[in-house]
């Protein structure tokens, strides 16, 4: 909707998310649907609430019954 705010986030050099397992920063490629934490290997599903902000949707691996 045109009523929402978007625009580049000041102060970053790219798009990133924080790993919820180890709190390391994970670089996210544009339009990526999945990322892997370079530190602990946890894989996350990614979604884009705005064109330049990525968020974790859930964990891909490591699901316990």
């Amino acid at each position, binding site marked *: *909707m045109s*009523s*929402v*705010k978007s625009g580049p986030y000041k102060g970053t050099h790219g798009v990133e998310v924080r790993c919820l397992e180890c709190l390391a920063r994970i670089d996210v490629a544009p339009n990526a649907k999945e990322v892997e934490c370079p530190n602990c290997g946890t894989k996350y599903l990614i979604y884009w*609430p705005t064109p330049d*902000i990525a968020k974790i949707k*859930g*964990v891909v691996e490591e699901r*316990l019954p």
Partner: protein
Amino acid sequence: MLHRKIGYISLSSGQVKKASIPESVRRLYLGGRGLNMYLLFNHLEQGADPLGPGNVLLVGAGLLTAGPVPGGSRTDVAAKSPLTGLVGDTNMGGFFSPELRFAGFDHLVIKGVSEKPVYLWVRDGEIEMRDATHLWGKDTLETPEAIRAELGDEDIKVLCIGAAGENLVKFANVRTGAKNAGGRTGMGCVMGSKKLKAVAVRGTLDIGVKYPREALEYYWQMQRKILDSKTASLFSVEGSLMQYNPTNTTGILRVKNLGLNRMDDLSLTPDTFLEKYSLGSTACFGCGMHCRHKWQIKDGKYGGLRGEGPEYYTLMALGNVVYNTSWETVLAAQYLVDKIGLDLAEAGNIIGWAMDLYNRGIIDKSDTDDLDLDWENSSEVLLVLLEKIANREGFGAVLADGIRMAAERIGRGSDYYALHVKGLGMVGTDDRAVPSLALGVATSTRGADHLRSRPATDLFGLPEEFTEKLYGFPVSSDYNAYQTKAKLIHYMELLYELVDSLGVCKYQTIFISPTFPQFEEYSKLIYYLTGLGLSVDELKTIAERCYTLERLFNYREKGITRNDDYLPDRYYTEPTPSGVSKTRGKFLDRAKFDEMLDEYYALHGWDSNGVPKPETLVELRLDKEPSHMI
């Protein structure tokens, strides 16, 4: 801003009295929640029946509500809670208390009981009691419409109750607008017991600002500080739902009552909502964050339904806790609880508990009016149960008085699974892995509640050098830690007491981002808007006074002490089954929790049993309470 009046209304006699609020009282209690707590302590006789004429219903605007402040829209409603017997207090956004201020009032003190249903009509300095017999039975969307038509003004704002309040369901809420709700502690039940259907308000009076130019300039700076951030970019799109994915993925959300701590089914995520149901954003009064959603369900079982909302708590209470994985059921259920005026936090908790009992074979269809409460059947039964509760019908009548009483009625060991603190239903998060959250919920003056103190940023892993600058003391960056967290909770309790007394929205404070306003910024805003010069330390003292007064109220009414400041036993014995490594296999360490409690009490100036010390009362000028200043 300081010249709003207080209105005293007796529903028994019909008498209305108006008075000014002296500046001396403002300097002690500010407004909103703080002043409501003072009025509650002073006007309620000890031991009064929450459903009798002796209970006092308080409606309060914040000291800065309606001003040029970020998020200055909040209304505070308080009374003695019929659910817990303790401080009843609830806070909501929207447009009601700004309108109350434009009508010339900041606080309404409503006593007694009316024989017949009535509503209050507050208009530009006048308060009138009007017959509401024709409104009784209308839901919370019909009632404002009917009142506006009757009084001939589309811009009237209405605070009202629905079926739940009329039927004295102990967790009935108060409602304004399309979806704003004052949910917790059963304030709608108090209104129902007084036969007070609604408070209608319309105001066209001026609100003075002490230093308009400086106020506007500083307001501009605050707007930029908040709204130019990444957090605001996200919040203005996802709203409070923004918190769902991080907390669910981390593994600190209750699922199936307390069965799981993460929902692996990802049906209920904000992106699905935004894609399929969202119609954009709307805002509360004076808010540039516009975090509120508008939605529509196009087809299917609930096709054609449209409304505002939902919030994060909606997803927790009507989603995760009851294991409902259907977005449309969440929205339809939210729409329903709004109409019938039922607190979704309490309702979700008690339904989740009932389903837990059913799935464990502790209760069966003979208890549940033949409803199948299997977890997989959640979306089929949720709305049915909500209606039953609001109408005290069948199984709903067992649940309508809250979880403590329901557990007594059902027996069979059901109380082991009943999650509450001091009688108020448990929050939507699973706090077994996060001691700071656990402490806050255990000690909150309302009962199990996160809004007295939630340190959401404790999960961010902020380095100690950073938190030292933020709070004035370092906080451990490890959210599993017990050390330093008592100080954090104490600090946040003071901040939120201040924020609730100013009538400002917590989402524009350090609640969601460490760069957002807190004490220092509010000190300046208060000065520019009202002329009251209150330093950060003075504001903290005021907050301390209000919070200890709440604790004193609870002690006076129900002898609340240390014994009541714990989460249910399961939190200290049962490990969490899933989540990330920091949240998996975790439960609270009772010994360390006790150490936190000791430190927490000391910070508040209470003794080791959690009772305010005499010297603390003197220091905070509470030894004279009740002082009957207003």
